[in-house]
């Protein structure tokens, strides 16, 4: 009996995925969601930046330089979360042959890469006042750099295969291999770092973070998360249009717009 109800549950889930997973339905759904996500992103960014740049007090050691944290830390978090999301989408597309998941994975990659790049750039800008130099082989920066290379490899593989189905499946395998490797790389770099520079200052080595700094940080993190969702909707919509460009509904849509 339990087996049957579980089966029914899975069937219902698959039906739901197929209902909203059809490119046309998702195109409409994402179109409705985009303005909501976009306005939420704006609201969170404006309030987070206001609180972070004016309301939060200067740090007693770092002065005002620490305020780059409100951009750097959310980007570093998002860079890793986007990689996991990309691997999950890619695996869903590969295992259950869901085309929408393939598109979502493909749309996530450049966003994740840009989060990683922003985290690297803001990290090195923060490094200048902290370490006196733009680049230190700090464990966090180094593993972020390797993550950036993983994103670049994923996008290069996607770009070099013309057939969308093969491109999606090949890069899905790469993403799964990558997501297994990310923690190994992360901890290897940490160990390598502690072996070589045991006394260096890490960016977030403060024992505790004050609530006045934590609130803007959380708001900015949510802001970047909704920014990701907004951009994911936009990119997925344009990718769907491109892939379905020969279907009737896209043709009708284009005709109704022009």
């Amino acid at each position, binding site marked *: 009996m339990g087996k049957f109800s579980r089966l029914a549950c899975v069937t219902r889930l698959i039906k739901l995925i197929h209902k909203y997973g059809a490119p046309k339905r998702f195109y409409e759904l994402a179109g409705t969601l985009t303005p909501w996500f976009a306005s939420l992103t704006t609201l969170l960014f404006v309030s987070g930046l206001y609180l972070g740049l004016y309301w939060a007090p200067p740090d007693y050691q770092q002065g005002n330089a620490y305020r780059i944290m409100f951009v750097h830390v959310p980007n570093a978090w998002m860079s890793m979360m986007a990689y996991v999301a990309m691997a999950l989408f890619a695996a869903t597309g590969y295992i259950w042959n869901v085309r929408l998941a393939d598109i979502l994975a493909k749309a996530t990659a450049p966003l994740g890469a840009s989060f990683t790049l922003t985290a690297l750039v803001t990290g090195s800008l923060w490094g200048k006042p902290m370490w006196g130099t733009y680049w230190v082989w700090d464990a966090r920066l180094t593993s972020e750099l*390797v993550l950036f*290379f*993983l994103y*670049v*490899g994923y996008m*290069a*593989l996607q770009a*070099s*295969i013309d057939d969308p189905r*093969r491109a999606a*499946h*090949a890069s899905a*395998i*790469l993403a*799964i*291999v*990558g997501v*297994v*490797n990310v923690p*190994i*790389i992360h901890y*290897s*770099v940490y*160990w*390598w770092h502690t*072996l070589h520079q045991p006394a260096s200052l890490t960016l977030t080595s403060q024992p505790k973070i004050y609530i006045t700094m934590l609130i803007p940080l959380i708001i900015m993190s949510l802001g970047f998360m909704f920014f990701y969702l907004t951009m994911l909707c936009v990119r997925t919509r344009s990718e769907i249009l491109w892939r379905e460009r020969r279907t009737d509904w896209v043709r009708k849509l284009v005709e109704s717009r022009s």
Partner: protein
Amino acid sequence: MTGGVLGAMRAVFVRELLVFWRRSTEIMAGLVFFLIVTTLFPLAIGPERRELMLVAPGVLWVAALLATTLSLNHLFASDYQDGSLEQLLMSPYPLSAMVLAKIAAHWVLTGLPLALLSPLLAIQMALPTKAIGTLVGSLLMGTPTLTLIGAIPAALTLGVRGGGVLVSLLVLPLYTPVLIFGAEAVAASAGQGFASVAHLSLLGAFLALALSFAPWASSAALRVSLD
């Protein structure tokens, strides 16, 4: 059909050895690359023995890693072109076992000679004699891991434009843990840190992980590429 899977694996292994052996220029190319890259470093850094000794573990490991990456293109490419890879896919035996046999043969003719040649280059790079054993050991454990991991991008990029450069782009970030612990093991036994046992056992752990994971992933990749 004697011996089932193991018999088939042995047949693939022997065939690969034979095929690779008859195209021995490719094996030699990897070794000569290793030799030349290592020779370039003293020319760039200077012949000072003390400085060479400091960079020797890193240089030797990076050169070995690049030589392995270079040879990855030969792993599946010619079998893909002449169609024998499709025959392998149609065989009744699990593809991952066949791939493992192929990788093993490839390593015997690329990674193994590399490890055996390394003491010579170690002397060239002024590596202390006590560290040479660790160098050979770390390469013997590290290079099979590199070949196993590298088989996945090699299978993914079959018949793709710009395949050769793409393989390096995909595989080099994945190589970082092996490089870290391989070079660290050699540096440690050259007297710059802790004992090398910990690093070597981690290399062994990576090898075990790659052995169980990589053949499966690269056979999935082959199925995608030959679909």
